[in-house]
């Protein structure tokens, strides 16, 4: 799993020329071939809802009433706010997702943050920081 995640990570690092469809195919392949049997071992937070497979890196903080899964990877030191729902998504390291955001079929690059109320964000790659829907349009790429 680490090797395939590294490939996606490198593709995201080149944010001048994002090949969204290639990244999407890699994500779907990862879910299909590498996610089976993944389950949660450690997190900081109070009993969220998990639907396997879900993988959480070290020191991931989860808010209240969070629902994760199926097919969710969250990298180390990321913070997920209250009432967040994540499905079929990869969140890399040091990401902050604010309260009440619903991400489906999305990839969020490392050090990104989303801090506004938008319950439904679907089918996109997010690289950077967004405090509003307008901001999000500038830092997201459709897949």
């Amino acid at each position, binding site marked *: 799993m680490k090797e395939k995640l590294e490939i996606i990570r490198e593709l995201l690092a080149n944010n001048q020329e994002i090949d969204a469809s290639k990244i999407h195919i890699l994500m779907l392949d990862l879910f299909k071939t590498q996610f089976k049997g993944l*389950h949660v071992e450690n997190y900081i937070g109070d009993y969220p*809802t*998990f*639907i*396997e497979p879900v993988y959480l890196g070290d020191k991931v903080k989860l808010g209240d*009433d969070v629902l994760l899964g*199926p097919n969710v990877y969250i990298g180390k030191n990321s913070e997920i706010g209250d009432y967040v729902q994540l499905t079929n998504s990869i969140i890399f390291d040091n990401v902050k997702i604010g309260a009440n955001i619903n991400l489906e079929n999305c990839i969020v690059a490392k050090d990104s943050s989303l801090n506004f109320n938008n319950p439904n964000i679907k089918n996109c790659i997010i690289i950077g920081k967004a405090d509003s829907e307008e901001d999000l349009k500038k830092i997201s790429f459709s897949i």
Partner: protein
Amino acid sequence: MSDKEEREIQRFMELDSNKLTKGKERELAIQIEEDIMNQNEVLADQINQEFKKYNIKSIDIVGAIGAGKTAIIEKILEKLASKYRILVICGDVTTRVDANRIEKHNAESIQINTGRECALNAYHINQIIKNKDLNNYDLIIIENVGNLICPSDFILGTDKRVTIVSITEGEWVIEKHPMLFKMSDVAVINKIDLAEILETDVDKMINDAKKINPNIQVITTSAKTGKNIDKLIEIFGLEN
């Protein structure tokens, strides 16, 4: 069912959080509760259609912690895992103890940890099946979160709902949880091997289930000795 029993069941249904609200807040609380129930039913119906489309048999197993839900599923898997392609969805507030047990019996298992929720709902199941190729399964068994109260609020779209109680829960356990038995197709009284030593009135338990739901099929089992597991499989409409 008598009027008195109907009223009693209605009273159980009304013991909900909306009683903590007043005036407009109460109206809103009731409206939200109704919306949630309606949405669950719509989703459960869609799930059932999907299962039918792929010719998958499906069972929702409900019961208290320690009743023997996982043990009975393990016994069923021992007999059926080589004949059916089986997916077992295990619901628990936390841990993956049950999924680990199931995986030892050559069946695929998915653990859902519900955290603060005390029952699986149709959304949880839909999230799983929409991400699975249903061509790969003949049978889906859902083991609900262990308790006899919350699951009565949420149907999951399965062909059958089975409620398992055990002799060690006492002979009043069915009488005290009417809603679940009203909504179940099969009542299983497990740990029957302990009935004699605990002097449990099994006939009372059977009669209580039949009184609450005259259409319910009642069977006594022992997951420990394997007693009546074959009969249970037959009741599920599966070939042993």
